[in-house]
């Protein structure tokens, strides 16, 4: 197997010439074999109209695998989705971006409103799944919604209040992030990467910086790494607070909803007091961090974190002991572990179903390399499991953040990188609060960036939501949706 793949680590730069290129048939066999052994897809990237590469993650070996596929002519290749449904979104994206047809793909339709696609396609040309029957009816929601949320169209096939199937059509927010990355100076793309997904600012900018620093071949001081991870964990805890508040709000349990919202504010204000932005924008920059945590503020921050944690525990105890709340959460929107593994769910939602994928554990990077952490998982796969997962991860984040504040070492804050290695490739995976964020950067022979790819965890998990609401009541959809809380723009890029 090792001969068929280029094997490398997270945040490591490799030469593009080392990627083995295989014929379509051999490629298919190789990838299928690897997937049977437990690796999972991270990215499919077309480097031309007749060749593409795949990046797989091998959690057991703590390494990433890469292989390329060369097509004879423009005939396309045999789709992998039938054997491994986890590939189905990647193959749709590949087809949309490059025109390479995955032959035999079960549901080939565009992922996004594809203004950067090879051919011009209108999203409205593509059909939805349809269900026929006397008592079956369809309910379409969106793309414009009642709340202040992003656009997306949800098409329910229902029988009365029961949902048979949900089809989710996104892509209304496609901004061409990957193309914008290639324009202009690659060293100045921090702001762009910070705005890939507004609520995962730190995760995306860390991944961008990670890829860039790997290509530039520089290492950071422990202090810079610690501050980055501190910001990451605060972001995680704050988002979990927000989601728990939203979950409580969706079941109309107002006290918990209000108080979670109330305690989220001081938490994100902590980021503001470091870098001036509540979401941590402007904190992380290539080569290190732009702002420092002053040594004198450490005791105060520690106290503040402990206070928030104490309040968090009180309100969490209240929420999870309320019978009426539990009866809403339990057995709602269940994704069993087998299904979750099959469709390649990652991150928080995957861990709630029992899949222990955690980049911080399996592909450790920066500070996490020095400090081992244990993954937290649930088994239920229902809304309750996802809520409990948020509770446990927030607890863990508090612990890590406090640990960082306790041990914050001295060191240089930032050393800006200057040049990139030529003909190289780096994949940076970070664990955002929603799950694994993947950025891949490839440079050409002149040391200029030639390709940039981004994958948000929402991309793989949206389909999990579609499966979760099956056989649930249609009125439980908002609750299921909130329990996943996936990103529209992270998916649309």
């Amino acid at each position: 197997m090792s001969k068929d793949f280029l094997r490398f680590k997270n945040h490591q730069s490799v030469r593009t010439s080392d990627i083995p290129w295989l014929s379509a048939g051999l490629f298919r066999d190789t990838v299928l074999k690897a997937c049977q052994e437990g690796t999972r897809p991270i990215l499919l990237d077309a480097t031309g109209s007749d060749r593409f590469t795949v990046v797989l993650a091998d959690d057991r070996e703590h390494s990433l695998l890469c292989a390329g596929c060369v097509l004879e002519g423009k005939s396309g290749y045999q789709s992998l989705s039938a054997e491994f449904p986890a590939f189905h979104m990647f193959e749709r994206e590949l087809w949309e971006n490059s025109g390479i047809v995955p032959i035999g793909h079960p549901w080939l339709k565009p992922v996004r409103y594809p203004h950067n696609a090879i051919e011009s396609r209108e999203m409205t040309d593509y059909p939805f799944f349809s269900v026929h029957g006397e008592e079956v009816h369809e309910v379409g929601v969106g793309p414009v919604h009642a709340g202040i949320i992003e656009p997306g169209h949800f098409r329910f096939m229902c029988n009365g209040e029961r949902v048979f199937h949900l089809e989710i059509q996104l892509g209304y927010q496609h901004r061409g992030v990957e193309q914008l990355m290639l324009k202009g100076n690659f060293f100045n793309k921090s702001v762009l990467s910070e705005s890939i997904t507004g609520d995962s600012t730190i995760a995306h900018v860390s991944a961008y910086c990670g890829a860039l620093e790997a290509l530039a071949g520089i290492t950071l001081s422990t202090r810079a790494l610690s501050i980055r991870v501190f910001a990451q964990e605060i972001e995680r805890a704050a988002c979990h607070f927000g989601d728990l508040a939203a979950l409580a709000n969706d079941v109309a349990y107002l006290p918990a909803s209000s108080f979670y919202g109330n305690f989220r504010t001081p938490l994100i204000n902590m980021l503001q007091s470091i870098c001036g932005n509540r979401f941590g924008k402007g904190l992380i920059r290539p080569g290190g961090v732009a702002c420092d945590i002053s040594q004198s503020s450490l005791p105060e921050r520690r106290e503040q974190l402990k206070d928030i944690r104490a309040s968090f525990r009180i309100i969490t105890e209240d929420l999870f002991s309320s019978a009426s709340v539990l009866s809403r959460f339990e057995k709602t929107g269940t994704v069993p572990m087998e299904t979750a593994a099959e469709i390649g769910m990652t991150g928080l939602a995957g861990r709630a179903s029992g899949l222990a994928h955690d980049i911080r554990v399996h592909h450790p990077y920066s500070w996490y390399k020095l400090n081992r952490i244990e993954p937290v998982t649930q088994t239920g796969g229902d809304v309750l499991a996802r809520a409990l997962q948020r509770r446990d991860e927030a607890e863990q984040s508090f612990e890590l953040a406090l640990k960082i504040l306790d041990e914050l070492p001295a060191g240089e804050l930032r050393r800006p990188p200057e040049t990139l290695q030529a003909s190289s490739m780096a994949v940076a995976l970070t664990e955002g609060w929603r799950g694994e964020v993947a950025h891949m950067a490839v440079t050409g022979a002149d040391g200029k960036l030639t390709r940039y790819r981004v994958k948000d965890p929402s991309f793989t998990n949206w389909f999990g939501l579609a499966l979760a609401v099956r056989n649930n009541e249609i009125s439980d959809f908002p609750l299921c949706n909130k329990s996943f809380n996936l990103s529209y723009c992270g998916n649309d890029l």
Partner: protein
Amino acid sequence: MKILIPVFNILLIIFFPLLYAGVINCEKAWWCGRRGPSIWQPFYDFVRLLRKGAVISTATSPIFAIAPSITFSTMLIAALVVPLANNNSLIGFPGDFIFFAYLMGLGKFFSLLAAMDTGSSFEGMGASREITFSTFVEPAFFIVLASCAILTGQTAFNQVFSLIFLSPGIKVLSLLLCSAALFVMLLTEGCRTPVDDPNTHLELTMIHEVMVLDNSGPDLALLTYAHYLKMVLISAMIVNIFMPVLDNSLLSACLFSAGLILTALAVAVTELSVARLRMSHVPQFVYFMNSLGYILLFSIILIAFSGR
């Protein structure tokens, strides 16, 4: 002094519904540690809506246009027969609680028609949910009122409620069951939290809110007002179960208002302390009213008429 009560009641019908909403909202905000909107906010909203123009979809028939007015007027007429302060209804005649129930039914019928008329799948869903729950509430209402009527030997609203407090022997029991049943009705008809979530913005989970989604301007104002008036009327029944007829009209009016405010607070506390029920579990909650009604009816028969 006697003229004071009808005047007070008319003022109550006009002003209290919006105040009632304001009290509930204030209580909820205060409990959650927020400052919340002013207690007069529903009045501001009402005036604002009245001053706006209405947008009516071209796809709808005239029913959509007249339905809000019908709903509003039926509720207003219904308010005339419900005993308010000092157990005094503006008009009252034997069997008027049946009249009341049918007026409520008429208003609901037109709001359902209007919702279906828009052709929106959400509003159809909301209408179907509302009618499902109503089918449980209506018979239960009759059972509860009928058992009170049996207990007191009267069939007019105001006499039933003024006598129930004086019924010997089983006062505690009938007060308990009757008020519990009517409270379930209040939460269901008022679309409050375990049944519906008045604050939600999610069309898929709404019941009442989704039915008025297409109404705007004065129509929406009337519907909102009628909705709160309905809640006030049911609350008035609950309060009157506990209120004896007093000689002092002023004291009676004050006590009655305080009772209404207390019911509003009780609604708010219920909303704060439980989460909303799963949609498929709502019927069993609403059916509770039937169960309570039957138990009340049979207890009354057993205790009052078994000669023991």
